[in-house]
C-alpha cells in the first residue's frame, strides 16, 4: 500500500511490488530494466538499497546463463563452419563452396552470438538512473562471466578432441572395435576423413576466442553508445524546460 504524493485528496491506491523482482529469463530482465527506466526517467529517485543482493544475483544469473548457453551453440557450430571453409563438410549439398557459401557458413557460426549480443546492446537506452545502471551492470557482468567460462570449456574441449580423442593410434584402436557394426571400407574412409578433419578443432579453439570477444564487445559498446545518446536527449530536454 502506498500513498500518492501528487494526490492532494489523500486517496490511497494499491501500489506495485515494493522490492525489485527476480527475473527468470532475459525478457523478464529487460522488462524489469524498462520499468526502472520509466520510473527514473520521470525524475523519481529510487534508493540504491532498493536493488537487493538477491536482485543483483538474479540479474547476474540471467546474464550468465545467456552468455554460456548462447556461447555453446556458437562453439558447436564453429568446427562445422571451418569444416565447410576447409572443404571437409558439405554446405547446400556441395563440397565445393562458393565465396557466398563460405561467408554464409561463417555467418551462421557467429550469428547466434551476434544476435544475442545485439539483444543486450539494446539496453544502452535504459542506462540512466542508479537502479537501471546497477541492473544492467549485473546483467552484463553475468554475460561476460558466462562467455569466458564457455570459452575456457570450448578451448579445453577442442584441444582434448585434437590431442586425445582423434590421436591416430587411439582412434584406430577405437574404430577397430566397431568392425561388427560398420563395414571395414566405411571405417577406413571415416578414419581418413577424421584424420584430415582433426586440425579443424585447433582452428576452432582460437576462432571461439574471436566469437567470445564479439559477445563481450558488442553489448558493452552498444550500452556505452546508447547511454550517451539517452544522456544527450535528456540534456536537450532539460535545456528546453
Amino acid at each position, binding site marked *: 500500500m502506498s500513498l500518492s504524493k501528487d494526490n492532494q485528496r489523500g486517496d490511497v491506491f494499491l501500489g506495485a511490488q515494493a522490492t525489485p523482482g527476480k527475473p527468470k529469463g532475459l*525478457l523478464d530482465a*529487460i522488462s524489469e530494466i524498462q520499468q526502472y527506466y520509466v520510473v527514473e526517467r520521470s525524475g523519481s529517485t529510487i534508493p540504491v538499497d532498493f536493488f537487493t543482493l538477491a536482485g543483483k544475483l538474479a540479474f547476474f544469473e540471467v546474464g550468465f546463463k545467456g552468455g554460456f548457453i548462447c556461447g555453446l551453440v556458437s562453439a558447436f557450430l564453429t568446427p562445422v563452419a571451418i569444416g565447410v571453409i576447409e572443404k571437409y563438410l558439405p554446405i*547446400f*549439398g*556441395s563440397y565445393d563452396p562458393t565465396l*557466398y557459401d563460405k561467408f*554464409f557458413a561463417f555467418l551462421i557460426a557467429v*550469428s547466434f552470438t551476434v*544476435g544475442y549480443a545485439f*539483444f543486450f546492446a539494446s539496453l544502452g537506452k535504459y542506462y540512466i538512473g542508479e537502479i537501471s545502471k546497477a541492473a544492467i551492470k549485473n546483467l552484463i557482468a553475468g554475460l561476460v562471466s558466462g562467455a569466458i567460462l564457455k570459452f575456457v570449456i570450448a578451448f579445453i574441449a577442442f584441444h582434448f578432441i585434437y590431442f586425445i580423442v582423434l590421436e591416430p593410434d587411439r582412434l584406430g584402436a577405437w574404430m577397430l572395435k566397431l568392425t561388427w557394426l560398420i563395414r571395414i571400407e566405411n571405417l577406413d574412409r571415416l578414419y581418413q576423413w577424421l584424420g584430415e578433419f582433426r586440425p579443424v578443432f585447433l582452428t576452432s579453439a582460437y576462432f571461439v576466442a574471436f566469437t567470445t570477444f564479439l559477445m563481450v564487445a558488442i553489448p558493452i559498446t552498444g550500452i556505452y553508445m546508447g547511454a550517451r545518446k539517452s544522456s544527450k536527449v535528456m540534456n536537450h530536454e532539460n535545456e528546453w524546460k
Partner: protein
Amino acid sequence: MNERRELAVMIELILISGAGILDTINPLAHVSQEGYSNLWAWLYATFLNGIWARIFAAAFLAMAFWLGVYRRRTAMGIVLFMMSIVVTYMGGMVGVMFWWAK
C-alpha cells in the same frame, strides 16, 4: 460371458479400423514408388540444394534477426535460426547418408 464377447468384438473393430488408418497414411497406397522417390528428389533439389537452399537459408536467417533481435520475439528467432541451419547443412547430411549407404 456376453459382455466379454462384446468387448472382444469392440477390440477387434478398433484394430481393424486402426489397420485401415495405417493403410491410409501409407504414401505408397496413393502414389507409385517411383513417383514417391521423385517427390523426395524434387524436395531435396528445391529446398536443400543449390540456389533455392541458399535463398531460403538467407531468408530464414534474416527473419531470425528481424524477429529475434529487433522485434524481441526470441522463441520465433530461435526457431527460424534452427530452420536456417537445417536448410544449410541438411542437404550435405542427406548426401553423406547416400554416400554411406553405397
